[in-house]
């Protein structure tokens, strides 16, 4: 077997640094929990509070009904010309035009904030600018090339540093992402969810389904379904056990939380299969088919999210009353309708600028409408994307958001999304840290069980499989290849948090983000152990996430180009 570069399988320094960060956060949160508990029992025993509490999540501002028209003020007899309007509801934004903030000369009659000094101005300006510049630089081809060379999924590659950046930047002593800034940036989450859902949907070309190896969908359903089931059942049990005393345990909420955690666990990044193929631990054809399965995992998670929002309605008292199945149909119908709308408006765009504007506007509209009626933008926009990509006469699937003008936009959106997610993540809930190792182990067990079950279902152990039919490689290699987690898991968490803000008080993020990191570590250490220390110089892992438009049929190493005389990648 040709040698493999060590950096392909060595845990990256960033990963180690971020594990260290998570470890630092864990004791801190545990300490905070202990202090809280001690305060409840015997306040005198607590000497001092070790750390300033984090800024709490910004509460959602409720939508209020329309401002009613002000009734006309009747004319005053002795003031015929200019009647007074005592309190007209001027809903105008004060910053609508130039110089509006000059109005701050007379600032609000609330307790006055200390005047900004030069240091504050410079820190906030440069800090915010640095974060946004980094988000843009993360989309630079050289950063993508590094990520691909290292074979990291986006969530553990360039994504995790941004999560950490968000986590750090929102701390009060840093003060860059203050609650007001976060409040302004939160709609980006809704838009980001819509973008990711649409992206996954447009990659799902129904016209290609019949070209897939027979049994692909069955393998995906069994593999990801088993994982979701195992993780869901174990999570439900653990959540019931660690439920805070004094709070009523609602069975429906436990089921809902378990389904969401199961959905997060089900998704795999295709990077694992690709790397295993390059390491020679999987046959090239098996690796290619497995990447297809891993990419399809996203669909399973999105379906689970759609079912959860239909069964556990996040908005009570709406004017529309439907049974759960009705909500499912409505969700699908909304997705199809909005997909057609997107297709129509983009088709009618008359120039590239309008194309960009209409696509972004239609995506925001779709994501916003889904969220407004209590659906997941992720699921609805997935259906929209699938519809738009599969309308007869539409472009080939995958080409919607992979055109150059969107490609430059995509990574910064993801990175800004990660920063906001990191800033809203509150790692101080004890349950998250208790759940984390259990989640990782349960996920690994679920994947193993799923792979074995899929092998049995595909009758791979028996002879006579049809040529071209779905074949999974050896159980251990296949299982290992499916361990890395996709960024869609983070998107599922964000979607759940958006629909159910009270859900598990921030533990879910700890479980899924930490789980992605630990799974990647386990994968890399195990792959290294399995592959030995041989290296194959000049070859790159070409890892990419499914939402990075990873084409399972494309095995070409892209960067760097192979040196003359080097062995070519196996196909």
């Amino acid at each position, binding site marked *: 077997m040709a040698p493999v570069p060590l950096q392909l399988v060595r845990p990256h320094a960033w990963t180690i640094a971020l594990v260290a960060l998570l470890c630092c956060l864990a004791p801190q949160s545990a300490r905070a929990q202990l202090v809280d508990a001690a305060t409840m029992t015997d306040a005198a025993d607590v000497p001092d509070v070790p750390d300033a509490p984090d800024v709490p999540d910004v509460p959602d*501002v409720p*939508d209020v*009904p*329309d401002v009613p028209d*002000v009734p*006309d*003020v009747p004319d005053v007899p002795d*003031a015929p*010309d*200019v009647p*007074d*309007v005592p309190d007209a*509801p*001027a809903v*105008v934004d004060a910053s*609508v035009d*130039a*110089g*509006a*903030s*000059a*109005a*701050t*000369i*007379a*600032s*609000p009659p609330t307790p006055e904030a200390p005047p900004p000094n030069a240091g504050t*101005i410079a820190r906030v*300006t*440069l800090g*915010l*600018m640095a974060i946004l510049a980094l988000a*843009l630089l993360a989309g630079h081809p050289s950063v993508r090339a590094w990520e691909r060379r290292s074979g990291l999924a986006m969530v553990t590659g360039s994504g995790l540093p941004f999560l950490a950046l968000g986590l750090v930047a929102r701390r009060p002593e840093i003060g860059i992402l203050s609650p*007001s800034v976060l409040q*302004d940036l*939160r*709609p980006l989450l809704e838009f980001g969810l819509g973008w990711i859902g649409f992206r996954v949907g447009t990659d799902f070309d129904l016209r290609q389904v019949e070209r897939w190896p027979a049994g692909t969908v069955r393998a995906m359903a069994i593999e990801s379904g088993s994982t979701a089931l195992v993780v869901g059942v174990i999570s439900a049990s653990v959540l019931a056990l660690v439920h805070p005393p004094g709070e009523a345990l609602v069975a429906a909420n436990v089921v809902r939380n378990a389904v969401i955690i199961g959905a997060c666990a089900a998704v795999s990044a295709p990077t694992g299969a690709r790397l295993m193929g390059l390491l020679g631990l999987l046959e090239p054809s098996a690796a290619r088919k497995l990447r297809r399965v891993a990419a399809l995992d996203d669909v399973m998670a999105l379906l689970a999210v759609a079912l959860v929002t239909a069964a556990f309605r996040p*908005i*009570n*008292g709406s*004017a529309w009353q439907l049974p759960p199945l009705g909500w499912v149909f409505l969700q699908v119908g909304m997705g199809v*309708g909005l997909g057609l*709308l997107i297709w129509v*408006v*983009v088709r009618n765009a*008359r*120039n*590239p600028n*309008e194309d*960009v504007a209409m696509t972004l*506007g239609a995506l925001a*509209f779709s994501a*916003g*409408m*889904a*969220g*407004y*009626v209590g659906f997941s*933008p992720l699921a609805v926009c997935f259906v929209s994307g699938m519809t738009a990509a599969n309308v007869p006469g539409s472009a080939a699937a995958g*080409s919607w958001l992979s055109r150059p003008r969107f490609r430059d936009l995509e990574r910064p959106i993801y990175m800004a999304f990660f920063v906001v997610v990191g800033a809203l993540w509150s790692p101080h809930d004890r349950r998250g840290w208790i759940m984390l190792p259990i989640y990782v182990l349960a996920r690994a067990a679920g994947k193993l069980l799923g792979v074995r079950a899929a092998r049995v279902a595909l009758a791979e152990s028996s002879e006579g499989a049809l040529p071209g039919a779905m074949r999974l490689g050896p159980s251990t290699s296949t299982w290992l290849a499916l361990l890395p987690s996709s960024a869609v898991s983070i998107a599922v968490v964000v979607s759940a948090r958006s629909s159910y803000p009270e859900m598990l008080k921030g533990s879910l993020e700890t479980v899924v983000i930490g789980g992605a990191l630990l799974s990647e570590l386990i994968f890399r250490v195990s792959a290294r152990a399995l592959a030995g220390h041989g290296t194959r110089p000049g070859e790159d892992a070409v890892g990419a996430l499914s939402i990075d438009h990873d084409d399972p049929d494309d095995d070409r190493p892209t960067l760097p180009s192979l040196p003359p005389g080097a062995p070519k990648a196996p196909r």
Partner: protein
Amino acid sequence: MIRSLILLILVVALMGSARSFLGPGAVASSDAGTALAFGFLVLAAIQSGEIAAALRLPRLTGYLACGLACGPSAAGLLTAPMISSLKLVSSVAVGLIALSAGCELDLKHLRPRLRSVASIAGISLVLALVAVAALVMALSPWIPFLRELTPPQRQVVAFNLGVLIASLSPSVVLALLSESGAQGPVSETSLGVVVLSDIAVIVLFGIGSSAAQQVFGGVHEAISPATKLAIEIFGSIAVGALVAVAIRLWVRHVRRGLVLFILAVCVVAAEVGSRLHLDPLLINLAAGLILQNVLRVSGEEIAHALEPASLPIFAVFFALAGAGLDLAVVRTLWVAALAFAVVRGVALSAGALAGARLARAEPVVQRWAPFALIPQAGVSIGLAEILGRHFPTWGVGARALVLSVVTVNLVLGPVLLRMALVRSGEVGKKGAAADLSAPATAPAPTAG
């Protein structure tokens, strides 16, 4: 046009159905409401702009009409919280507009016109301020919120109303210049005049609010208004210099993704502005001026880079401006609004004409530049909001009056300015690149 109309109806119907979802006690996620409103405004405003263009009106008028029709005071498809939650978009748009304006102002190139610009801006502003203040004083016995005030108090209120009603709109002028691809003496002079007037209005408002505080008491503050004004102006310029250096570094060392970087910079300026009481307009204007005139970054390059972002940002920005107008107030005060709008328009035009003649500007400038002074938008609205908050005894009434005048000028101003640009023969001289209605160079994803 028919296609745009059908699409508009479709989008409005979808929005209406979504808005019907919430029952009396139901509360939707505010983030979803923001995304929904943003997406709706992009889609609906762009189609409205197309319809307006087909009717030979400025696209901007279509955006405004769309916002006005869908806003809380008309159809109610957009709620007040939705509009309020999109303030970041407005601030970013202001930043984008100001940055573009700064980049367009090549002082070396503008030097021959500086005399005209200063003369037109100075005389028209002073004349309008005096005329409006005089009208306020003359009508004060019949204006309820002035009737009870003492003569010195009335004079202070009249001065403040004069400043607010005389203010111009750089955003409308720049958007129209960008939309029409206009270039020439009228365009250049108009841009300079509105930018200069805007800075003057900020300073004048500082003086006016300071005087009001002396006379009425107002809200006690630890820092004097003069200090605040100095912090705002010089702080904004300092931050603008930082922004300019950052853009320069990006242009020199990265280049890729310049438009996204500039948008990010505008977000930063908006956030910094709101948190540190600085003015996003001044920040970005200073950044643009420094980039163009000190750091020697090509303003054309920046403007070209910003083209793809301009369409959705401008559409949403002006639709929001339209949605923020209150038809109920206009219905109540339409007579007074018309009177003040006429006096303002006449005074500004006369001042501009006098200023242009005094500076011996070209005849085409003398004839058409006054029309650039008619549009009015958020400066007045923003400042009136502050007066309303801080001087409740008379500020609320003053705000209602200013809003109604702005509504009239916001509706008529863009139409008049476009007509002036067309008549002066400057439309389209900047090249097809600036015209957003240029034919497609890359097709939408419809091919096989």
